[in-house]
């Protein structure tokens, strides 16, 4: 069982080392692949120094393009499971083995680490009220549109099995990809599960999603979900 951790990082020079170290401690058997999304700081050097596989994108593609680079690497290298962990240190990697196990045991093709399923964890970051409302709305749209029951569709802390790796390597939304990619997976008939995880607030840097962006996020993802193609076109995506 070969597992790859995909760590997308854009200007995460200050946190990437500790994220990699935490990953190694929590899941020593997992290969780590940092995807440097055209960072302008020392992210690439920090990752190289940590001795992980570094996928260095020559231009900034955004989170979707970066994560997909990782999925393509996982597919081409024949990994059985790929886990996504953000490079900003928000994801508590002690939950990683549980996510991997769910996929490895064949209980699901895609497991989403959720802040909202399971009992409420003390001290865990659950985001602001308005964001939770947005997340609940996306969750409802996903359920109605493609029958996927996911309480935390914006979570970027996920584990993917072989079939999901193949699918995401072929087709992955370029921006604000998390909810839409769940829809893509559901449409492809993949089994989606959710496990409770803990997330922290950001250690460094700014969230990429401010107020105006939040609105764009909701509109864009809503449109994407409504316009979701019924079938995946053959071959690689073209637009």
């Amino acid at each position: 069982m070969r597992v790859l951790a995909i760590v997308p990082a854009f200007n995460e020079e200050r946190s990437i080392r500790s994220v990699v170290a935490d990953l190694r401690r929590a899941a020593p058997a997992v290969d780590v692949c940092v995807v440097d999304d055209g960072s302008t700081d020392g992210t690439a050097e920090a990752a190289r120094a940590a001795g992980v596989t570094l996928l260095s994108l020559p231009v900034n593609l955004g989170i979707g393009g970066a994560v997909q680079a990782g999925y393509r690497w996982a597919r081409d290298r024949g990994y059985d499971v790929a886990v996504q962990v953000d490079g900003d240190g928000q994801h508590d990697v002690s939950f990683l083995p549980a996510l991997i196990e769910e996929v490895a045991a064949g209980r699901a093709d895609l497991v989403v680490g959720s802040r909202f399923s399971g009992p409420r964890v003390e001290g865990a970051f659950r985001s602001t009220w308005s964001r939770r409302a947005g997340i609940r709305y996306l969750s409802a749209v996903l359920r109605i549109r493609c029958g996927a029951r996911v309480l935390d569709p914006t979570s970027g802390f996920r584990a993917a099995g072989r079939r999901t790796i193949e699918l995401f390597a072929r087709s992955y939304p370029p921006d604000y990809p998390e909810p839409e990619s769940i829809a893509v997976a559901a449409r492809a008939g993949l089994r989606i599960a959710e496990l409770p995880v803990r997330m922290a607030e950001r250690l460094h840097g700014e969230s990429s999603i401010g107020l105006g962006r939040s609105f764009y996020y909701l509109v864009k993802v809503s449109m994407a979900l409504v316009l979701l193609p019924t079938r995946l076109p053959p071959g690689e995506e073209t637009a």
Partner: protein
Amino acid sequence: MRTDLIPLELQVVSIVVLAIFLLWVVRLVRTQRLSLRDSLVWVLTTLLATVVALFPGILVRAAHLFGFQLASNALFGAAVLYLAVNVLVNTVASSQNAARIRRLAQECASLRAELEAERAGRRSQDELSPDDGTPDPKP
């Protein structure tokens, strides 16, 4: 060619402007800033507009045919529609290009990683020193 539909001055001005526009497009093609393929739509529409400028009667007849009260309204309508279609076609092309760039960047990153692993492997072999901890990405 001379009709009472539009004043001679306007006719001359439009033809001159269209000629300049056409020369500009040709220049862009010759200096390879615009591909011949992409220039065709501009060349053809400019020629079409020139024909209409030379024979304004065509426009008047077409306007009546589609129920416009004034030929100028028909012209504005057609121009707006034409530009909208053009912009949409360009947006499609730009989306396709974005997808291609994404693919190329990903491929580039993955080739870079392979090359680095290869070099690191060769270096550690040359020096007969222990592995620097870079995991071998190959299965």
